[in-house]
């Protein structure tokens, strides 16, 4: 008897037959029996976990975002409707933070992608010690972001940092990378790129290694240059891994918090304050939970929208392939 027949006979049929369950079906054993034979029983644990860890917190955040709830006030939370969203949309600081987030995300994603691709192409050859090199290159990705932030903060230090040491040995004056308004965001982006380039490398290298050899051999026989092969053969065939990399990098970069918090705290001024930093400050420095939840939900909607676009492109490319 197949699973479908078994399920139909003991579960679905019984449920749709309109018969009153027998006395034995009302026992715990009977309920467990019926649940075990119910199709949805297989996915129920996963659904419960999703509800507890994703859906409930999201709905709770949505509920909070509709409240005026300041932990500094003795009064209980009151319904604010869309007031918190309106507050955000009228705040210059919110739009500035959004702008910085988009710059951070786009520059970091593109740079990660470019460097990851370069390294993947280099490692996709018969190199001595290739496996060791690959292992060493993924080290930044497995380091805790807080440790990465502290390490780079020290490296950027004008007096004690390694970067300024090399700059001064070249005869240039020292630069306060994290202490200047026009360099702080760029400095944090560099750190983010350093940490997550290995992620792009891993996906793209796996993609490169799985490509068939025939198209490359055909292109070589036709006399195509290395650049043309890369541009017209490799890249189109790697479209899937590239889009997956972009998808994950956009999600990661949009939510980067630890590194920025440790390195600049959003400063100097607010020159490196991204949306997530702003939401954090609203919630855990100003204790305005409603506004903070609204900012977080706005981010969720925006990231979902961006990922939908990327997924649509990805599906399009899969259909074309």
């Amino acid at each position, binding site marked *: 008897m197949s699973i479908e027949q078994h399920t139909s006979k003991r579960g679905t049929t019984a449920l749709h037959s309109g018969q009153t369950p027998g006395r034995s079906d009302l026992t715990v054993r009977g309920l467990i029996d019926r649940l075990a034979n119910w199709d949805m029983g297989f996915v129920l644990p996963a659904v419960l976990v999703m509800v507890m860890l994703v859906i409930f917190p999201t709905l709770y955040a949505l509920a909070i975002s509709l409240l005026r709830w300041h932990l*500094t*006030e*003795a009064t209980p939370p009151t319904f604010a409707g869309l007031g918190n969203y309106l507050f955000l949309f009228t705040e210059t600081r919110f739009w500035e933070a959004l702008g910085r987030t988009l710059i951070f995300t786009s520059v970091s994603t593109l740079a990660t992608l470019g460097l990851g691709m370069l390294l993947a192409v280099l490692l996709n050859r018969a190199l001595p010690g290739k496996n060791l090199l690959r292992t060493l290159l993924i080290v930044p990705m497995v380091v805790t972001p807080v440790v990465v932030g502290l390490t780079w903060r020290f490296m950027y230090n004008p007096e004690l940092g390694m970067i300024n040491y090399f700059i001064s040995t070249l005869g240039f004056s020292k630069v306060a990378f994290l*202490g200047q308004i026009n360099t702080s965001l760029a400095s944090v982006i560099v750190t983010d790129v350093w940490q997550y380039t290995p992620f792009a490398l891993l996906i793209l290298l796996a993609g490169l290694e799985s490509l068939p050899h025939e198209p490359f051999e055909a292109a070589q026989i036709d006399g195509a240059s290395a650049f043309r092969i890369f541009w017209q053969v490799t890249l189109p065939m790697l479209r899937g891994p590239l889009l997956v990399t972009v998808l994950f990098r956009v999600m990661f970069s949009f939510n980067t918090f630890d590194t920025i918090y440790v390195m600049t*705290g959003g400063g100097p001024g607010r020159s490196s304050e991204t949306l997530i930093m702003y939401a954090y400050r609203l919630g855990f420095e100003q204790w305005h939970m409603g506004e903070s939840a609204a900012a977080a939900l706005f981010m969720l909607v925006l990231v979902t929208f961006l990922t939908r676009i990327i997924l649509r492109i990805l599906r399009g490319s899969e259909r074309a392939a």
Partner: protein
Amino acid sequence: MTSSTRKPIHVLSTLLLVVTFLAACATPASPEATTAPPGAPTQQGSAPTSQPAVPLTKMYAGETIRILMYEQVPTYSTLDRLQEFEDATGIKVESELLAEAEMIKKETLDFSSHTGTYDVTNVHFWYVPQFANAGYLEPLDQYASSMSVPEWDSMDDFVPSYLDSQKYEGTLYGLPFQGIVQILYYRTDLIQQYCNGQPPATMDELTACAKAITDAGGGEMFGYTDRGSADAATFMSPAGWIYAWGVNFLDDQYRPQLTTPEAIAAMTNYVTLLHDFGPIGQAGMGWAEAEQAILNGVAAMHVDTHDLGPDMVSPERSRFPTEIGFAMPPKQVRYSQDFFASGLSINADSKHKEAAWLFIQWATAASTQKEQLAERSDFTVSSILNSDDYQTAVPGGSVILEAAKVADPAYFPAIPEFGALSDVFSAAVSRMVAEGPDSVAAQMASANEEITKILEDAGYYK
């Protein structure tokens, strides 16, 4: 019910009556096993009717309290002696230690969710108004008056400014566990060489001395360093600088004073010191980096909290341990301030408030603090700060005592919205330090406007 089941119930009832009668006729076992003090708060918050005849310290034996504190030397020093408290009271203490920022988040969420997970927590003085206003903290005046354990009672011994910092609208919400005041750290050799041998006493002298050292430093040595980053801890130094010029951050009507001539002059001086005479990258330097600058010999002077003293003279931490001097903070109209106090408070949702009170009384007692003389410097009782032992054991001890006398928490806007104010002002300070003194007027006006809006929204100007 059968007669066989009724019989044991009759026997038990009779026994219970006999025991109750005998207990009612009993006298106290000994004269010293007295009752609880009159008016002592009870677990239910009502006046006590009759208390068991045991000493106050043993009255809550068998209870377990949970405390949340942050990881730092005073916490470790106190908890190392926890057995003394447990032996004296029979109360079991379960402690949870977290990094400072994490502890603040956790206690705030515990308070706001009213779960009462923690009976006692560290509360920084700037959070006292916020938490008290929201009803998160248990008022302690009644406990202080009626549940005093004589050997632990330091109410008259606490440094007044530290004790005041634990009050909100006249009500006591914590006992001062840790108190820190501001002093000037300076390099004695450089002051001797460039500043006539005397540490600067006024803001003008400080600025002139910082300029002289920076001019002679050739880009390797700078005259002064302080907090310039955009994080919340930066708030205190510039707010204390404004206080020195004679105005408080907020006036009596809660109006920010950032556009007053005094505040502009104060911040112009602060920004000039950091931007022109401070190390490169001051706008990204918090208190830890500023401390490092003087420990590494990059900066010659630093005004900050007195608990940095042991680091300054430590051969392991400092490059110039024997060339660090201590002096009073610089003065304009008043001494600048960087006052800090952290107390121990009782959660209003605690189920063990009396046991918690005994704990915070013990943890902040002069007798408990005195045992820690070799381990810390941030004591909160006058008897220790005034003692010869303290003066000799703690680097800069005599200066700390003088600074404690002029310490004034009033420099700080102790209102529930402090977090929002700090967020705005610290970012403005960081920007001013990055851009230089010319940006002060515009940034102060912008911060003033933003803070006014926050306080208006919070209902201060109705």
